């Protein structure tokens, strides 16, 4: 079995409580950091670990931390992003439910490294049960002396508060999250200034994903170099993958980065293959925003190498033949699924979630949704495919935040890889209402990629 760092004790009864978590070696990272390391030492370990942001962007966490401005007399904030809303992603919910103290311990270590004395965990409002669990964990940690004034006699003070969201995908974007935390609409801010300079209440702020923060615990415990030994190249450590769709064993899996995609799908240690004896048609590897890939390209890069679960290998071939790691939201589509319908569904999602600030996204997502709806329900015109291509191209890169890009990529990739399915829908409007296109040659691993 692969090495686990975050979910090692996930099956231990009562691991959600302070007592059991502590018995299993929990809060050692806090003791080590506060008693033997300076804040800069902790930053250095995280840099050495090569940890990359687990929320989707994959930006090196240590580098993000080193950008934090430190003007005299101005408070600094750490804000944890638990607004998990990317379709296909449910790892943070899992982590917070099962082992909330891993997040709290990581929050303490990370806040210490950044010199923050007040930190917030922003959790999407629909996760009320998880909000209760995390608040309970904070109370337990505080009662045990790991939060509050003068933690473990180190002179370091820290309070952590949970902030519920109000139901908005856009608040997963870090500046929208900060706006929301300030009690406003979740409209992303224009950058620069970046949050590292002017974030929460205009103060220097770091925003990190739940999983990234939890990953600082093994990094402090074992050292950054040890963490960096796991994985391949610039994809170090372990990653939580949320697996959903038409697979035998949906759920959250901790993988060592570098695992072949094929093994992840078919091994009984992970997804366990495609459900109901069907064949795999396509995958989305990192949440709905990343390009969808037909089976052949999912398993093998255009160069003919086995595709691996790493930031580099998933992105191999760029957006023409590759995809992205994203948030690790892995969705499998079997041969009975309709790519047109799914693309319409995802586009409706982005239209619904667009904050409305930038015209290309506000108008473009709605326009694409209408066109896709038209095709799906048998009223499409062959020129609609070029129209969709044109709209997505004009959204991509032309908005304040990446939601615009995220709405464009699924449409672009669906057309790029599944154009014949779109054409079939349009040319067979009646038939497409009664049956699906099915598994076409492009999804057959035996047919070489053109």
């Amino acid at each position: 079995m692969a090495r686990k760092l975050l979910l090692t004790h996930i099956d231990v009864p009562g691991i959600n409580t302070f007592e059991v978590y502590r018995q299993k070696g929990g809060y050692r990272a806090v003791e080590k950091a506060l008693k033997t390391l300076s804040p800069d030492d902790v930053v250095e370990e995280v840099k050495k670990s090569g940890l990359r942001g687990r929320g989707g962007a994959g930006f090196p966490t240590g580098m993000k931390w080193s950008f934090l401005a430190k003007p005299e007399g101005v408070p600094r904030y750490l804000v944890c992003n638990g607004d998990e809303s990317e379709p296909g992603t449910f790892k943070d919910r899992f982590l917070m439910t099962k082992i909330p103290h891993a997040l709290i311990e990581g929050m303490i270590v990370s806040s210490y490294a950044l010199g923050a004395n007040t930190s917030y965990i922003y959790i999407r409002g629909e996760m009320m049960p998880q909000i209760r669990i995390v608040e309970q964990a904070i109370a337990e940690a505080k009662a045990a002396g790991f939060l509050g004034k003068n933690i473990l006699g180190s002179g370091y003070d820290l309070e952590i508060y949970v902030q519920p969201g109000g139901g908005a995908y856009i608040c997963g974007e870090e500046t929208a999250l900060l706006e929301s935390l300030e009690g406003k609409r979740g409209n992303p801010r224009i950058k620069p200034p970046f949050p590292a300079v002017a974030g929460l209440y205009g103060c220097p702020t770091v925003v990190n994903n739940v999983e990234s923060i939890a990953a600082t615990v093994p990094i402090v415990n074992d050292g950054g170099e040890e963490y960096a030994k796991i994985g391949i190249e610039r994809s170090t450590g372990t990653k939580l993958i949320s697996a959903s769709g038409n697979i035998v064993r949906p759920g959250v899996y901790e993988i060592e980065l570098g695992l072949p995609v094929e093994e992840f799908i078919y091994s009984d240690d992970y997804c366990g293959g495609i459900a109901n004896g069907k064949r795999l048609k396509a995958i989305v590897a990192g949440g709905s925003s990343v390009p969808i890939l037909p089976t052949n390209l999912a398993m093998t890069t255009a160069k003919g190498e086995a595709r691996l679960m790493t930031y580099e290998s998933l992105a191999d071939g760029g957006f023409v033949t590759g995809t992205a790691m994203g948030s690790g939201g892995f969705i499998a589509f079997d041969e009975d699924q309709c790519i047109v319908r799914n693309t319409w569904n995802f586009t409706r999602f982005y239209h619904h979630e667009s904050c409305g600030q930038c015209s290309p996204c506000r108008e473009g997502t709605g326009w694409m949704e209408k066109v896709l709806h038209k095709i799906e329900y048998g009223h499409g015109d062959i020129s609609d495919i070029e129209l969709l291509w044109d709209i997505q191209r004009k959204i991509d890169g032309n908005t304040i935040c990446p939601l615009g890009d995220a709405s464009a990529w699924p449409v672009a990739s669906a057309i790029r890889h599944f154009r014949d399915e779109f054409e079939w829908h349009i040319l067979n409007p009646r038939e497409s209402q009664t049956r699906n296109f099915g598994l076409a040659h492009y999804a057959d691993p035996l047919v070489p990629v053109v």
Partner: protein
Amino acid sequence: MLSIQENMTVEFTPALLDSFADVVSRYPEGKQKSALLPILHLVQAEFGWLSIDAMDKVALFLRIKPIEVYEVASFYTMYFLQPKGKYVLEICRTGPCCLVGAERIMQHIENKLGVKEGDVTADGLFSWRGVECVAACGFGPVLQIGPEYTFYENLTEESIDSLIDDLKQKAKNQ
């Protein structure tokens, strides 16, 4: 879109005001507006929805303008600006849940309750609506019921039937 069908005068109890003050204490001096989203959740849990009067009173409490409350309440999808059923069944309608039958489940709920999406049943007990991804894709189809957002996973027609029956029974016993 902010569309107000009716208003409802509300009175905040001392206990509720205490919980507001507890939320405000999490933020630095002068940043009490940060408490807006959590306080709106508390108000909605108490009264079932956010009336104009409730929002105005929140504005007064936080020393901000009413428009600052309306613009937030109308932006986020969790806040109800008109009365809903006692139990609002929110079914995830995004891609991964649809791969495992969410659309069929929504159709079943519509048939079972006999009301369209967003409407309230005649007995005032139920509303339902499709919501976007609730981050439980591996356990789909899923639905959630506020204000505690209890989750019901791996839904089937049968589990929906027994859930609705259970809720009816629960309401009767209250």
